[in-house]
C-alpha cells in the first residue's frame, strides 16, 4: 500500500501511540480490502461505543492514553444505556457501569454525544460525494444509497481509527466502480395498495438482503421519489438479512435516475423478480410465532424520525395502550427534543408509550420480563430480537402494532397479502 508521508509518520509512531495504533488497524484492514492507498474523510460515525465486553474498554483507553482525539466531526451510535431515562436499565449493575465508562471514553476522544443509530436524521449530515467512515449497518447503507455519500461497510474499531487519523482505505464502496449495480431487483405484480404502504419496504428489504449478499442491486418497479423513511426501512432490513452496504432505487436514490445510470457499464449478472409470493414468504420469515398473546410492542429500530412519530401519533389518536402490554419507541435525543416541543412526546406518554433514547430495546435490558410475544414494525428488530432477547416476534405495520397494543393481543391486517 502507498502511504503518504503523514500516514507513514503515524504508522512509525512519530505522532504518538494513538495515531500509531489507529494507522496500524487502518493499514492492516486496508490491505485485506486490497486498497492501493488511503483517502481523506470528512466525518465519522462510531459504533464502537456500544459495550460488548472488556475489549471495547481496552481499545478506547489505549487510544485515549496515547493522546487520541478525533480530527473530523464524529457522531456516536446507540450505546447500552439511556442516559436520559437511566431508570429504564434493568441489567447487571457492573455491566451498566462498564457501558457507561465506554460512553465516557468516546466522549473524551472528542466525539459528539449524539447516541443515535440514525445519524442521517441529524441536522448536520454528509453531502453527496463526501467520503466518510461510518459504522452501523443501517447508517452505512443509508449514507451510501440515500445521501450518495461514500463509506465502506466499516465495523467497530476502524471507525474511531479513521476519526482520529482522518484517513480511510481507498477501497470498497469509496470507489466509483464498486458503487454500480451488478444486478436488477425487479418488483412486479404487487398491488398498488401494498406499494403505497410503508409496510412493503422493510419486507422488500428483508428479501433483498437474502438475495444480494454484499452485491449492489438496482431496484426497479417501485414508485419514484420514495421518502427517506421508506428507504431507511428497506436498507436497514437488507443490511440485517444480508450485508448490503448500498442499493439503488431507480427514480429515488441519487445515483440511479435511470436503470442505465445505476448499472453504468455493468451488464446485470441476473434479474431477480420479486412479486406477491416472494413478499408473502419474506413477511412470514420475519415472524417466529403464530401466537396472538401479546406482551410487548417495540417500534423505532432504526431510531424513529420526526415524521414517523407524527404518523404514530395519528394512528394512535386518543386510544391508550392496553394494561397487559408494554409499548416502547426508540429514538435519538435530538428527535426527542423536537417531539417534546411539538407536544407529541406528552401525547404518547399519556397513552402509555415509553420513549427510549440513546439506545435500543434489543441491545440492552430495558424491557420488563415479556409475558407473551413481542411485536414490531421493524424488520431489523424482528431479525435480531429473537436471538438477542430470546423472545418470539411478530412483524406488522405500524397500524397493526398500534391496534394490537390497544386491544392487548396480536391483530394484523391480512388483506394486503392475499
Amino acid at each position, binding site marked *: 500500500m502507498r502511504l503518504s508521508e503523514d500516514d507513514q509518520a503515524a504508522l512509525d509512531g512519530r505522532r504518538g501511540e494513538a495515531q500509531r*495504533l489507529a494507522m*496500524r*488497524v487502518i493499514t*492492516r*484492514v486496508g490491505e*485485506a*480490502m*486490497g486498497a492501493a492507498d488511503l483517502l481523506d474523510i470528512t466525518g465519522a460515525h462510531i*459504533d*464502537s461505543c*456500544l459495550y*460488548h*465486553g*472488556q*475489549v*471495547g474498554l*481496552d*481499545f478506547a483507553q*489505549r487510544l485515549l492514553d496515547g493522546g487520541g482525539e478525533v480530527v473530523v466531526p464524529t457522531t456516536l451510535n446507540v450505546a447500552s444505556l439511556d442516559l436520559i431515562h437511566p431508570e429504564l436499565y434493568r441489567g447487571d449493575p457492573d455491566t451498566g457501569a462498564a457501558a457507561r465508562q465506554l460512553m465516557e471514553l468516546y466522549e473524551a476522544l472528542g466525539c459528539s454525544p449524539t447516541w443515535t443509530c440514525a445519524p442521517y436524521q441529524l441536522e448536520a449530515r454528509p453531502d453527496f460525494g463526501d467520503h466518510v467512515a461510518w*459504522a*452501523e*449497518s443501517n447508517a*452505512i447503507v443509508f449514507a451510501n444509497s440515500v445521501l450518495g455519500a461514500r463509506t*465502506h*461497510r*466499516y*465495523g*467497530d*474499531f*476502524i*471507525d474511531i481509527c479513521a476519526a482520529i487519523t482522518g484517513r480511510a482505505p481507498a477501497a*470498497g464502496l469509496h470507489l466509483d466502480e464498486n458503487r454500480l449495480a451488478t444486478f436488477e431487483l425487479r418488483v412486479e405484480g404487487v398491488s398498488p395498495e401494498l406499494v403505497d404502504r410503508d409496510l412493503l419496504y422493510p419486507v422488500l428489504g428483508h428479501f433483498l438482503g437474502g438475495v444480494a*449478499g*454484499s452485491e449492489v442491486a438496482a431496484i426497479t418497479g417501485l414508485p419514484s421519489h420514495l421518502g427517506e423513511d421508506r428507504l431507511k426501512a428497506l436498507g436497514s432490513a437488507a*443490511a*440485517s*438479512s*444480508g*450485508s448490503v452496504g448500498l442499493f439503488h432505487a431507480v427514480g429515488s436514490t441519487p445515483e440511479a435516475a435511470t436503470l442505465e445510470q445505476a448499472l453504468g457499464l455493468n451488464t446485470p449478472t441476473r434479474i431477480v423478480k420479486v412479486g406477491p409470493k416472494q413478499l408473502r414468504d419474506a413477511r412470514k*420469515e420475519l415472524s*417466529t410465532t403464530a401466537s396472538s398473546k401479546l406482551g410487548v410492542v417495540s417500534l423505532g429500530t432504526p431510531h424513529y424520525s420526526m415524521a414517523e412519530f407524527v404518523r404514530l401519533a395519528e394512528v394512535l389518536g386518543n386510544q391508550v395502550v392496553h394494561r397487559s402490554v408494554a409499548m416502547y419507541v426508540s429514538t435519538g435525543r435530538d428527535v426527542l427534543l423536537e417531539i417534546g416541543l411539538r407536544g407529541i412526546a406528552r401525547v404518547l406518554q399519556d397513552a402509555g408509550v415509553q420513549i427510549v433514547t440513546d439506545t435500543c430495546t434489543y441491545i440492552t435490558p430495558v424491557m420488563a420480563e415479556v409475558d407473551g410475544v413481542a411485536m414490531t414494525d421493524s424488520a431489523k428488530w424482528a*431479525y*435480531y430480537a*429473537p*436471538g*438477542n432477547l430470546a423472545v418470539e416476534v411478530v412483524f406488522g405495520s405500524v397500524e397493526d402494532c398500534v391496534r394490537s397494543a390497544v386491544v392487548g393481543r396480536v391483530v394484523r391486517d391480512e388483506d394486503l397479502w392475499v
Partner: protein
Amino acid sequence: MRGRPLVAGTAVGDVLRLDEPLSFWGGFDGATGRIVDRRHPQSGQSVAGRILAMTSGKGSSSTSSVLAEAIREGTAPLAIIMAEPDEIVVLGAVVAEELYGVTMPVVLLAAKAWERLRPGQFVALQDDGTILM
C-alpha cells in the same frame, strides 16, 4: 490448498462449515461460543475451538467487537476461512492481535476451493495461507 492470509497465522482443527453466513453480533453468544441465530442452519452449534468455514460476513458492524471479545475470552473459532473478504471479521481479529497478541487467522480461499472443505474435516492452516487437508 493455497489461500490469501487476511490475518496471517497458524491453526489446526476440525472444520465447522456454515451453510449460511453468520453475524457474530446477534447471532453468536460469546459466553458459550454457540450460534444463537435461530434462523441459522447451524443454530446451537459451538464455533469455539473449531476452524470456521464461512463464505462471507453478514449483518452488524458490531461483529468486530463481539469477535474480538470472543478471541480474548477463548470462545472464538481457531481460525476463519472465507470465500469473500470481509473487513468486519478481519477487524475483530486484527484488534485482538494488536491488543492482546492473540492471533485468530483469517484466510481467503477462491470459491471453488472453499467448496472443497468438508464438515468435520481436520485441516491445518499455515502462515502463508496454505491449508493442509
